[in-house]
């Protein structure tokens, strides 16, 4: 366990090389990939998320930790796949039609990935049909939609309606976010969740997917 604590600490420090090399050592010593993931990486990223929430870590430091996590996952992924271990969930995300603001969306994607989710980012200016196609194709647990303008936020409603018309609404949870969006607006358009910022989005997604 001491080694897993060290892995979590190295991850927090964003030491990419050391995280990768310790991961390999732990795998070589016979530790299961799932143990390394759950008790090392996810614990470490949990601390990182908390430190970001309290302002102790800035985003570049968080991203450095995420890079270290990816370096470790590169080693673990084939082993996890062999053991039938899946990511926490698959999330499709995109910025609505008519809107190209994507820094917030990208941040949410990075943090969710760091928390153990698989992310499929459709990019910006995404029309309802493309969201529907992505649900059909990838069967995600959750859809994350963003908008930055008062004149594009209603396209979130159009998108949710299109998903409903395609008969897919019950298959996917939907979270919305963006500067002009509020919980009230999310409720009005029939979204399942809303988060005010990227850090809260991770907590909200876990809550929506009932992940501890």
């Amino acid at each position, binding site marked *: 366990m001491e080694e897993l604590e060290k892995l979590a600490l190295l991850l927090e420090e964003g030491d990419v090389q050391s995280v990768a090399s310790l991961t390999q050592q732990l795998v070589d010593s016979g530790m299961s990939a799932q143990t390394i993931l759950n008790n090392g990486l996810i614990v470490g990223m949990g601390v990182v998320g908390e430190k*970001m929430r309290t*302002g*102790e870590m*800035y*985003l*570049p*430091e968080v*991203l*450095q930790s995420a890079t270290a996590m990816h370096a470790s996952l590169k080693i673990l992924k084939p082993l996890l796949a062999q053991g039938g271990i899946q990511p926490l969930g698959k999330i499709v995300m995109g910025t609505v039609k*008519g*809107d*190209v603001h994507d*820094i917030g969306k*990208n*941040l949410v994607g*990075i943090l969710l990935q760091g928390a153990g989710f698989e992310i499929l980012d459709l*990019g*910006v*200016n995404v029309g309802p049909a493309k969201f529907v196609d992505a649900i059909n194709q990838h069967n995600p647990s959750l859809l994350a939609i963003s908008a930055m*303008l*008062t*004149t*594009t*936020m*209603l*396209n979130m409603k*159009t998108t949710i309606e299109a998903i409903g018309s395609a008969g897919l609404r019950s298959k996917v949870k939907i979270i919305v976010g963006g500067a*002009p969006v509020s919980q009230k607006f999310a409720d009005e358009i029939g979204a399942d969740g809303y988060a005010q*910022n*990227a850090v809260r989005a991770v907590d909200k997604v876990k809550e929506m997917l009932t992940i501890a």
Partner: protein
Amino acid sequence: MNNTTTINTFSKLAIKSSSELMFGKAPKPAKCGFNLNVGGGQVFPEINFTLPTMLIEENTWPAVVEQYQEIGEMLVRSAKRLHLPGLMVEFELLPPMTEKPEWGAEITNILHMALKRANDEYGLPCALRATPTDIRDGIRPPVLRSGREWEALAASMDRCAAAGADILSIESVGGKEVNDEAMLHGDVAGMIFGLGVLAPRDMEFLWDEIVRVSTKHNIVPGGDSACGFANTAMQLSSQSMLPEVFAAVVRAASTVRSLVAYERGAYGPSKDCAYEGPVIKAITGAPIAMEGKSASCAHFSPVGNVAASMCDLWSNESVQNVRLLSGSAPEAFMELLAYDCRIFNKALEGGSEQAYQSLLVESDVHLSPQALVLSPESTMRIASAIVREKSHYRMTVAAAREAVSIIRDSVRSGELSLNKKEATWLDRVDRELGVLPQDEGTLIDSMSANYGHLYLPESYGL
């Protein structure tokens, strides 16, 4: 495209000392629209507005038009009620209004006619700034010099100019695709590459066209804004996602790409959200628009008063056309700006402008490194560092390094306090600036591994 562009080079400052860097006064005032003389001794409000929550589509277009007609009527009525000495109106097109140039032109004409009425009826000096949306980053990597988006943007500028715009401006996005990624990672080299190598190349291309269109229609080419770069950094730092010192350095570094507009022939007031404006004013002598405390309807900032200290136009950035207890939000903010401007102008009339400027500066400047780099003294230092260099890349590095020096000096004198994390980041930024290559070719080569997938070299003539 214009093949006979005259390029201005700025090797000397238009303003020689910080005491001459004053609100309401620019060495080269810009006359525009209906007899509005910006920077000629008074500060005027620049009112900006946007739509409430609604879609912009064929079937909602009549309702969109109604919104702007209502705003136009408000402008005529309230400018008189508030005894405005002059008024700048900014119409920032929303993306569909740029994608469909006739829509942007229709709204431009509604606002132009409102201002004409105010001028006809009671002689209000006024002008209309039209700012088409830079829609060229609708696809990634952005295609900046050709294609449907570029053609729509170019057509939009031409149609707005023909429909009654007095000034053309833009918040351009060239280099943003790299700068965004670099900022998130706190990568100084990537940030400088986006701001000092890619962005100036796009600015040259874009502003040759804006100046050509403006000349054709006999209107004023106003300035650009590094909003998508430096204001993004400011907002990320306000959410504790980026260090404030990093945002302050990005602010200084963003100046050079915006200066390129003036090298290519812009001479009108810079954009309100271009907080790099004071440095541009010091270098070029052009008047500037600024925004601060009275733009909190659009975003928060740590520079609410200091931002006002050198402005020629004072703006609210943007507010939705929604109802408040008093009336419409744009009218409420017009009143706010009007009262702000009365104080500027009384100070100028009575010879107390230096004292008032000091209050505006001193009230903010030691509370945040972002405010510090906006002071008149800092502005002069950054401007001087820029004009000493020859290439846009070196100018950008010089501006960034000067910002670091300014912050260090203030910390050393005990005026500015940085916590340990901010101080560590200042050291990191300083160190990374110090190891940048002398020539941009080396930097360009080194950037392709991390950022090559984000941009198209042909969009920048590379």
